[in-house]
């Protein structure tokens, strides 16, 4: 048998628990155990708060099914959990908080070693035509529409206090994850902020954000919400650059 065939047979045995021809079962058992335990440990480490929410036994059972269905392909273990949120969504179609906790775990971990970017500060918020200003965000920023109070649950677990019971939240509410300096951060967002961030990330100008808000709010409230978003995003290190887009 040439090396490629040998290695293919070994891989098939590793992931299936089988035994290639002529191979000592005792030694193969060590490799099979190393393979599985390494991946399980990786998932437990990456999805730390999800483990605490589900409990060790339940998490291990869910993670074991993920390991069976998703053999790793990247050279870095950091990438291994990239489909785990979807795996949890399929496993817990009613308990939205489970996958949403995992989403927070995953993106906080990704933000930890994501690309660097220097954020602007409040003093940099100067422009002569705010309607045309487009916002460029730090590259670690991610957001998601939330169905549950997973942000509050995650925060309570992190603080070591009893987490609230899972409840459904108002439609349109979101959560964002990013890195401020060297520290991964997360926050919940109102439906208005979530919609504005969604628009801004797709290239909408500040004027277009205001136009969107003006459809449902009076001018004073529109100004207050838009200014509040801009101020919070800047103060929290989410914006890397202001640029001037095409005229409205």
């Amino acid at each position, binding site marked *: *048998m*040439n*090396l*490629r065939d*040998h*290695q*293919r047979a*070994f*891989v098939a045995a*590793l*992931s299936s628990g089988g035994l290639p021809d*002529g*191979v*000592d079962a*005792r*030694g*193969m*058992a*060590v*490799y099979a155990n*190393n*393979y599985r335990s*390494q*991946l399980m440990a*990786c998932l437990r480490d990456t999805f730390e708060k999800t483990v605490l929410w589900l409990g060790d036994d339940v998490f291990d059972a869910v993670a074991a099914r993920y390991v069976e269905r998703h*053999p*790793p*392909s*990247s*050279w*870095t*273990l*950091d990438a*291994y959990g990239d489909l785990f949120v979807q795996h949890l969504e399929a496993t817990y179609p009613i308990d939205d908080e489970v996958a949403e906790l995992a989403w927070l775990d995953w993106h906080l971990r990704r*933000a*930890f*070693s*994501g*690309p*660097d970017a220097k954020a602007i500060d409040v003093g940099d918020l100067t422009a002569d035509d705010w309607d045309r200003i487009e916002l460029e965000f730090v590259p670690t920023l991610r957001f998601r529409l939330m169905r549950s109070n997973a942000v509050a649950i995650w925060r309570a677990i992190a603080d070591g206090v009893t987490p609230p019971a899972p409840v459904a939240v108002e439609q349109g509410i979101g959560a964002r994850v990013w*890195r401020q300096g*060297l520290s991964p951060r997360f926050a919940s967002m109102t439906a208005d902020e979530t919609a504005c961030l969604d628009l801004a990330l797709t290239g909408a100008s500040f004027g277009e954000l205001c136009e969107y808000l003006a459809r449902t709010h009076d001018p004073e409230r529109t100004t207050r919400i838009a200014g509040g978003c801009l101020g919070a995003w800047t103060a929290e290190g989410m914006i890397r650059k202001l640029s001037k887009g095409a005229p409205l």
Partner: protein
Amino acid sequence: MSHPSPTPFHGFGLGLRIPHYTDFLETPQPVDFVEVISENFMVDGGRPLDVLTRVRERYPVALHGVSMNIGSSDGVDRGYLRQLRALADRVEPLWVSDHLCWTGVDGFNSHDLLPLPYTDEVIRLVAANVHAVQDALGRALVLENPSTYLAFPEAGMSEASFLAELCERTGCHLLLDVNNIYVSATNHGFDADDWLERLPLDRVRQVHLAGHSQGRDMLVDTHDSPVPDPVWALYSRFVERLGDVAVMIERDDHIPPLPELLAEVAHARDLADAVRRRAA
């Protein structure tokens, strides 16, 4: 000291792990160098690279990888090599090492150090991969002997002979893991001292010292406990033959407070000093 080292002596070091970052950044520690797991720093940015940059300002750094996949019939991933080269350019390491093993094939990655059959076909392939790596990195590769739990009947040569031949064909260097030799020798029933005799000792750049566990049927290289007495004994015998080669304590799991590991570093230094005094 029958084999004086042809390269500068880099002393006694420790594998840098997350629980000890603050210790290393805030207080000078009695180590001559640190070794880091390359893949943990082959990232885009954030705290890992910030820490590594600041540690590098204080200590020489060796890069030690686990995912090069040097023995894969796929060849070595070019993207991986580009990222490793970028890290090496940034860190200017003492050397770049990885393991004589394979980790995956056909796009699958086991994230484990899998065993190779030591055949003529395999040495041709691994030598070609080492050449490709050395061209990409612009430096000689340092390869470590892994712990193994399987031997293959078709193997025509021993691991030590395979490593010696690989050095001859590629000019690569060696990282001698004394614990791995002990584990493999115990699991496969060969003599560790004979194993060392087959190596070109002038190619050894670094020594690893670590602990292992007793598995159900064999010893397992778990790096989760202090260096045990049989490994210290083997190290003492090897030091006599190796001369002044960099030595490092490696702990990857159940990581204790830093002073416990520094005591092991000091013990490695003391044993080497004792050998040196006897030889003087």
